[in-house]
């Protein structure tokens, strides 16, 4: 450890030894501004030469008090903030919160809306994985990869933009479904994307999967044992890379994931390369899920519940009748009051299990909104993995955990 800590533990270590230790070791502060900490993560590394002997992540540089905001705003008002926690997969965050509140209220969106929610969730997963792949490869030095990934990500953002007008922070879901209509060209856009993307993914893999430098940088680096992965509460690809089969979509299905036919890819070694393979395979499964959704989906039908006190009154009737306008006014001004209780809704986010724990006290404002974000918990494995690794591995490890600091710090 550093000089101070060596002096602080004088029990076995003689003064001479402590001095040489502190001379041999170097404390390197990585971040909060560093090209490969994916935002404002700060990691304090203790190094012997280029080998890491101590690693202490320091969080909170993007702590914005989202949970406190949730306790002071009405249920439907909180949705925009969920976008801004994990901003690379905003629809997934919307989905988790909306599902939690719908569960609390005891309502369910119509079938067509549910299918569209799944499509948007999977597209968000793809967008998030593309950001992960690009930045992860960039950290390891594959410069062009990030540009290719962001090129395809723009297609997904186009779909979001067509649907709700925003690219990144979509705020697309509402209690009880969607309040916006689905544009006519949207299914075609999604289908086009599903046709284009697999070819592009082959391109990525041809650049990385068999590249000897990529293999040597990722094979055997950052190994997580299965027991340790469970004990550290890892979820997502970090857990599945170690061979534990836990995917919320399969284990405790939500939406219509029980109707879908898809595989949960599992790793065997638990190293960076396995997690890379798991995520690449997940992208293929996502495309398959989107195609199944498009095939199974009813082409016509309501997108939102109409006769529920928990749902915003439909837009077109608000324009026509006075009663609906009053209802709309009251709903917007007063909000709605779910029954007293507490729910924990977990969904499979692109990074792992995203849990929303919402406590209601019967007022229009949630009593407590808790975000169990996957990357906050997954980031705990960084000191575990970094022990004994090289400095260059640390950037690969941060990349493989796939963190978004807004989601880590909230």
């Amino acid at each position, binding site marked *: 450890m550093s000089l101070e800590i060596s002096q602080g533990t004088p029990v076995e270590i003689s003064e001479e030894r402590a001095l040489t230790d502190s001379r041999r070791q170097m404390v390197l502060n990585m971040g909060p501004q560093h090209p490969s900490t994916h935002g404002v993560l700060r990691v304090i590394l203790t190094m012997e030469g280029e080998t890491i002997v101590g690693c202490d992540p320091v969080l909170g540089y993007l702590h914005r*008090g989202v*949970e406190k905001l949730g306790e002071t705003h009405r249920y439907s008002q909180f949705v925009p903030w969920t976008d801004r926690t994990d901003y690379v997969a905003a629809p997934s965050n919307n989905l988790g919160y909306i599902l939690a509140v719908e569960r609390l209220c005891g309502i369910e969106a119509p079938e067509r809306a549910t299918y569209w929610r799944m499509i948007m969730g999977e597209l968000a997963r793809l967008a998030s994985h593309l950001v992960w792949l690009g930045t992860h490869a960039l950290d390891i030095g594959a410069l062009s990869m990030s540009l290719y990934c962001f090129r395809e990500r723009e297609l997904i953002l186009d779909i979001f933009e067509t649907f709700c007008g925003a690219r990144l922070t979509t705020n697309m879901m509402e209690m009880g479904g969607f309040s916006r209509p689905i544009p006519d060209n949207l299914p075609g856009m999604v289908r086009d994307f599903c046709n284009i993307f697999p070819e592009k993914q082959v391109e990525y893999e041809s650049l990385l999967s068999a590249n000897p430098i990529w293999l040597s940088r990722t094979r055997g680096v950052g190994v997580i044992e299965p027991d340790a992965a469970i004990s550290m509460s890892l979820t997502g690809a970090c857990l599945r890379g170690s061979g534990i089969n836990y995917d919320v979509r399969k284990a405790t299905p939500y939406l219509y994931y029980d109707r879908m036919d898809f595989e949960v890819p599992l790793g065997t070694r638990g190293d960076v390369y396995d997690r890379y393979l798991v995520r690449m395979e997940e992208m293929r499964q996502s495309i398959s899920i989107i195609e199944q959704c498009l095939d199974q989906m009813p082409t016509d039908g309501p997108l939102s*519940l109409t006769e529920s006190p928990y749902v915003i009154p439909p837009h077109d009737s608000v324009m026509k009748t006075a009663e609906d306008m009053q209802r709309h006014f009251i709903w917007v001004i007063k909000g709605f009051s779910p029954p007293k209780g507490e729910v924990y809704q977990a969904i499979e986010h692109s990074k792992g299990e995203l849990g929303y724990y919402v406590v209601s006290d019967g007022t229009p404002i949630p009593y407590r909104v808790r975000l169990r974000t996957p990357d906050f918990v997954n980031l705990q494995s960084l000191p575990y993995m970094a022990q004994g690794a090289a400095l260059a591995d640390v950037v690969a490890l941060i990349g493989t955990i796939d963190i978004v600091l807004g989601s880590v710090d909230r």
Partner: protein
Amino acid sequence: MAEEQQTGGPADSPGRRIWATGHWGPTEPEEHPAVIAVRERFPDSFVDAVNFRDEMTIRVDRPALREIVLFLRDESSLRYNFLSDLTAVDMLRLRDNPRFDVVVQLYSIPRRQRLRVKAAFNDGDPVPSMTLLYEGANWLEREAYDMFGIVFEGHPDLRRMLLPDDWDEGHPLRKDYPLRGYREYVQPGFENPAPRVRSRFRRP
């Protein structure tokens, strides 16, 4: 808050109740194996079990929390081996005493079931740390300490997590903590015209 808890609200969608997914085990507390096992094993520490939207919550006494979670983790018929979440709720506005609830969300990977364990305690009471059972509780407890000021007994490294180390304005997720903090951040440009870097030239 369990005193006034309702079991189920008005279900608007006809047909199946969507929350009835079976991910939390049997809906009746008397039939739930975890509830039965905990009640048998820890008759003194077991408070009650509540079901809301088919989610099973076991409420236990604070001192026995770690033993109960250890039992839930290691008992071969239960095997809640995965800590989904650990957090706290400040119940200041809902009841007088005790003030906080610590909420532990458990999940069983082999049995694919969730369970929630809650324990109530007052400000200043040490809560047994889960870090010895699940390494993943480490940061979650640090966060709870940071946000609520809860002291976890047996935690190896209880420091501030998200707020700065020298933060001296208390614990923000407590209910008596205002949203914008006790002290307004200094906004020099609010009353006076804001200091901007002025360009000496105007755009044509």
